[in-house]
């Protein structure tokens, strides 16, 4: 699906500062990056700010990340609780800030959106998908977002309609599209299958 972003692999880049935002297994992408940085790692860490939250599957590698010894390390219980901090950091950003996003698509998509809104160049952002493949889904009918979707179909957590989870993806919403699956034949809802883990 051409509307879905393509994710890469985090690599250290020269910059005036380094902002990392990760959830769950995304922590390991950051650990790997510092491994790759080798002798540069300690000078990189002096200019690094890491914002981390556990993954939707419960994975929490916070202690390992904290042990890296970055200039700033912050653990949040969720993206929602980290967001005001992230926005402040982005608003204060200097030219040359490098941004590294790692973990689930939902986390990267939402953080990316804040980066764009802050007017920072998208070339400064790297992404790496790790861990859970659960989806953020927007109900096209009521517009509510259901987080951490594992199955298809799902029940919209706002309006209760049964939704088919499409692959069509909106970066602006950082969400996949959910469309009523039994619209044509009300009541005929296929059994939910676990498609995203």
């Amino acid at each position, binding site marked *: 699906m051409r509307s879905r972003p393509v994710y890469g692999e985090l690599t250290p880049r020269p910059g005036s500062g380094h902002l990392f935002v990760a959830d769950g297994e995304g922590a390991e992408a950051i650990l790997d990056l510092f491994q790759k940085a080798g002798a540069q790692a300690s000078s990189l860490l002096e200019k690094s700010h890491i914002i981390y939250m556990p993954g939707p599957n419960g994975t929490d590698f916070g202690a390992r990340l904290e042990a890296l010894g970055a200039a700033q390390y912050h653990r949040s219980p969720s993206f929602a609780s980290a967001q005001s901090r992230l926005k402040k950091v982005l608003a204060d950003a200097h030219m040359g800030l490098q941004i590294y996003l790692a973990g689930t698509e939902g986390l990267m998509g939402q953080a990316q959106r804040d980066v764009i809104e802050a007017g920072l160049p998208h070339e400064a952002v790297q992404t790496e998908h790790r861990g859970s493949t659960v989806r953020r889904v927007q109900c096209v009918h009521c517009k509510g977002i259901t987080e951490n979707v594992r199955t298809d179909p799902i029940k919209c957590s706002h309006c209760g309609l049964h939704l088919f989870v499409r692959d*069509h993806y909106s970066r602006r919403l950082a969400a996949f599209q959910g469309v009523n699956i039994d*619209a044509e034949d009300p009541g005929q809802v296929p059994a939910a299958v676990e498609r995203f883990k």
Partner: protein
Amino acid sequence: MGMEFNKETFRKDFTFKNSAKAIKRFPFPFYEDSYMYSVNMEPHVPGPKGSVFEPMFDVDEHYVAEMQDRAMVLAEDPLRCQSLPHMTLAGWDLLELIMESKARDYPEWFELHKDGHNWHWINRPLGIDQKFTFLDESTLPYGPMEYITRQSQGDFTLQDQRDDNLWIEAGMVTTQADWSLDFDIGMSFHEWHAPVPRAHELGVFDRALKFLLKLQHGAPVRRFNWTLTVDPLLDTSPENYPKWGPMRADISPENVGERMYLRVELQTLHRLPRSNAIAFPIRCYLIRFDDLVTVPKWGRRLHRVLRDIPEDLATYKGFLRNRDSLVKWLSQYDDGAPTSTGWMAD
């Protein structure tokens, strides 16, 4: 000219009806007896007198009723009209293009008087008389795009051009074939086309984008798209799919002629002068199957197109479940006689 505008509805009791004249000038979209996606664009130059191509923006007997339907959709769901902040200038460009075109092509209905930036717009069919200052939003009751597209049939989107791509960043979308502006706004050309089957692989979107990036002001182009709709419902939005989806299950061999409609979109593309954006009007024409088959060539051809269309396209366009009934019904109007190439009736 003195055309009467129909009093009709596109919802609930569905009193929409095409006059004999509207049937005759219906833009039948199939050039031959089969259909596949292609880069089907041609210059949007004035066509034969009386055709939907004669003016820049066709105004027909459904004008007033369509504008009433649009107002109802917007009252229910204001997200059908959105414009990202940097698109206001493109909105003014569009307003100018539509006002100038309509005043030129239909002087008995529309007038535009300019004195510098002081403009005076008269729209007689809708009873509008508006003095405003061009490029000053505070002098209009809506933003410029919303103001003018509440007075123009068809959907409209505005694409910003940057980074060698087009970005859909404003639109008025109330008569759409099942896509959501609210979901797609902000996407690039290949992103918003992502759900379309086959066309990416065929290279249609790569070539179309390359062509559009070089589109010149004053040299608009046009293309057709089509689908099928049950009942003359303009607002087949994904937002309201739970409301109209069940109508698809109503189709039976007995009611095909009366309730199935061919839905044709005449799409034009215009480079805008100040913003360098591209305007994309998507004008929707509906024709009941019963009326369509009164032109023998159209009946024969539609039968062959629907019978032979690949299943993934029929699925994407949403009529796979009814295809067999439709083809069976249409087969009554196909005697196997050869058809001439081109759109014109034989």
